[in-house]
């Protein structure tokens, strides 16, 4: 290795690590520092307040509904796109990406147009006594919308890579479509799906824009953790805002760790 080669290698390393440290790690570290600056009590108090606990509960409800739905839909959609190339597949493929391309605020507004007082679906819904906006159903819809593509996008390439031979082999051995799916296809794509689930969960946990528009952000009623953070911040309750932020970060981190743990256990 020449001296200049070594220098440039070190230069690259410093630049790469510096970039990550400055832009990713510094803000995170600062939040943790600010949160616990005056001990554990202030952030803990904020989170365990009735509004804080309600926000946590609501956030977990969002995850509990949106993630399974998008997982099932995502796997089905990926199978459709890869295994059953039908007319319109290309269109579906493109439409799936919309939530990535459109600003979450716009997604929130579009839900308003559908379910709002002058919306398309409003007459039928109010007759049936169903409230979508400013209540949990609307927030769930928004969460599903913004997190829809992740499982599809992570599963499609894995499905393409494994091909159809293993599935055909299982069929010749007597397995029906259901058995092929559970015993061959799903185990083969599980890490793609798992990664999609982690990303979906992280997105639902952290979603602000779309949920903020449709929820009305009513404390103790339609406030998820990100909305709670904003409200605390606006009210100059910084320990509360930081405490809830750290909680959100820890929730997202734990899903990532859970996946890594499962994967390591399997590889061993």
């Amino acid at each position, binding site marked *: 290795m020449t001296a200049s080669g070594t220098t440039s290698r070190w230069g690259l390393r410093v630049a790469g690590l510096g970039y990550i440290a400055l832009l990713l790690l510094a803000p995170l570290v600062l939040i943790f520092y600010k949160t616990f600056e005056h001990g554990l009590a202030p952030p803990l108090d904020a989170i365990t307040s009735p509004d804080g606990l309600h926000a946590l509960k609501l956030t977990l409800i969002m995850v509990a509904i949106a993630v399974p739905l998008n997982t099932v839909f995502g796997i089905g959609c990926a199978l459709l796109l890869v295994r059953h190339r039908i007319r319109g597949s290309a269109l579906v493929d493109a439409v799936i990406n919309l939530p990535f391309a459109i600003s979450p605020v716009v997604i929130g507004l579009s839900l308003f147009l559908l379910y709002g007082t002058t919306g398309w679906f409003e007459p039928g819904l109010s007759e049936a006594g169903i409230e979508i906006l400013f209540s949990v159903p609307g927030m769930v819809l928004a969460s599903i919308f913004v997190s829809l593509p992740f499982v599809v996008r992570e599963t499609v390439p894995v499905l393409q890579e494994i091909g159809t*031979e*293993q599935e*055909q*082999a*299982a*069929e*010749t*051995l*007597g*397995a*029906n479509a259901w*058995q092929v799916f559970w*015993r*061959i296809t799903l*185990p*083969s794509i599980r890490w793609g799906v798992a990664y999609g689930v982690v990303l979906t969960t992280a997105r639902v946990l952290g979603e602000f824009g779309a949920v903020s528009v449709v929820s009305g952000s009513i404390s103790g009623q339609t406030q998820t953790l990100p909305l709670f953070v904003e409200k605390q911040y606006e009210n100059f309750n910084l320990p509360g805002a930081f405490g809830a932020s750290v909680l959100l970060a820890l929730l997202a981190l734990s899903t990532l760790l859970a996946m890594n743990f499962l994967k390591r256990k399997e590889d061993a």
Partner: protein
Amino acid sequence: MGISVEGAFKSFGDFQALNDVSIEVPDGSLTALLGPSGSGKSTLLRAIAGLETLDAGQVLIDGEDVSKKPVQKREVGFVFQHYAAFKHMTVFENVGFGLKIRKQEKAKISARVHELLDLVQLHGLADRYPSQLSGGQRQRMALARALAVEPQVLLLDEPFGALDAKVRKDLRAWLRNLHEEMHVTTIFVTHDQEEAMDVAGQLVVMNEGRVEQSGSADELYEKPANEFVMSFVGEVNRLGDHFVRPHDMEVVLDADERTEEGMVQRIVALGFEIRVEFVLADGTEVWAQLTRSELQRLELEEGQIAYLRPIQAKSFNGTSPDDGSGASTPRGPQDGDGAEVSAAV
């Protein structure tokens, strides 16, 4: 269980993969479907298994029309070129898969799997994953997996295609022995004529979605039905309308009325066999297969003129070489109507 296919048609878009194919596979035989890529041989095999639906025609297994039967119910063992090993399962789980699907008792599955692993010489590797096996071991595992459910017929799609030459040769012999022990009707697809002749008792030569000829290796080699079969099952020289195997080319130093003049272009020694390449007066390139001693006797050298005399030639279009149709046709052999022609030496 005999297999027969009658009037099979199959197209993929504009591509006609099978064009009125009918074959007969006798019970207990080992048959090779031989042909170049795109000849329809794999499509035919997959149609027999039920992995492909025919546009028209029938597949009969043991006299029963199974054309409408789904793949799960056809009771065929299928082996894929790239093994199709279940990567997330151990060797044991792979081989036992079909039995587990059939809800057999655990003890029974275990006994059967170990019996099969003995048969394919993978004993002791039951707990490995496919990624920890060599290509040859994976293919033997796939074979054990297919045999576990006691299929009526065994179908192999280029089973040795992805293996290196040495392993290939071993597995060929091994498959032949296995078939002798098990007597299950077996069809295997290959594009390698040597492999087909080595392993199979009966060959079906396919080209462009049609069956060109079927029969034993000897029949195909000695009495090819057409030019395609003749050139596919062995080396061949073309002399006008006639086809001559290189080992049927006699090289002499003196001209007579049955010989063709040629210049020695290249002499290649391939061990015992010597390949002598000639260029004829009209520019045709042919080669003769000689033994080492023949070459020494003739004392051939590159660049010299020698004479070629076809001992045995075949013609498939019925024209006689004596009707003046071409200057480069050998003058000796007389032929009938597209039949084999032999000339006394």
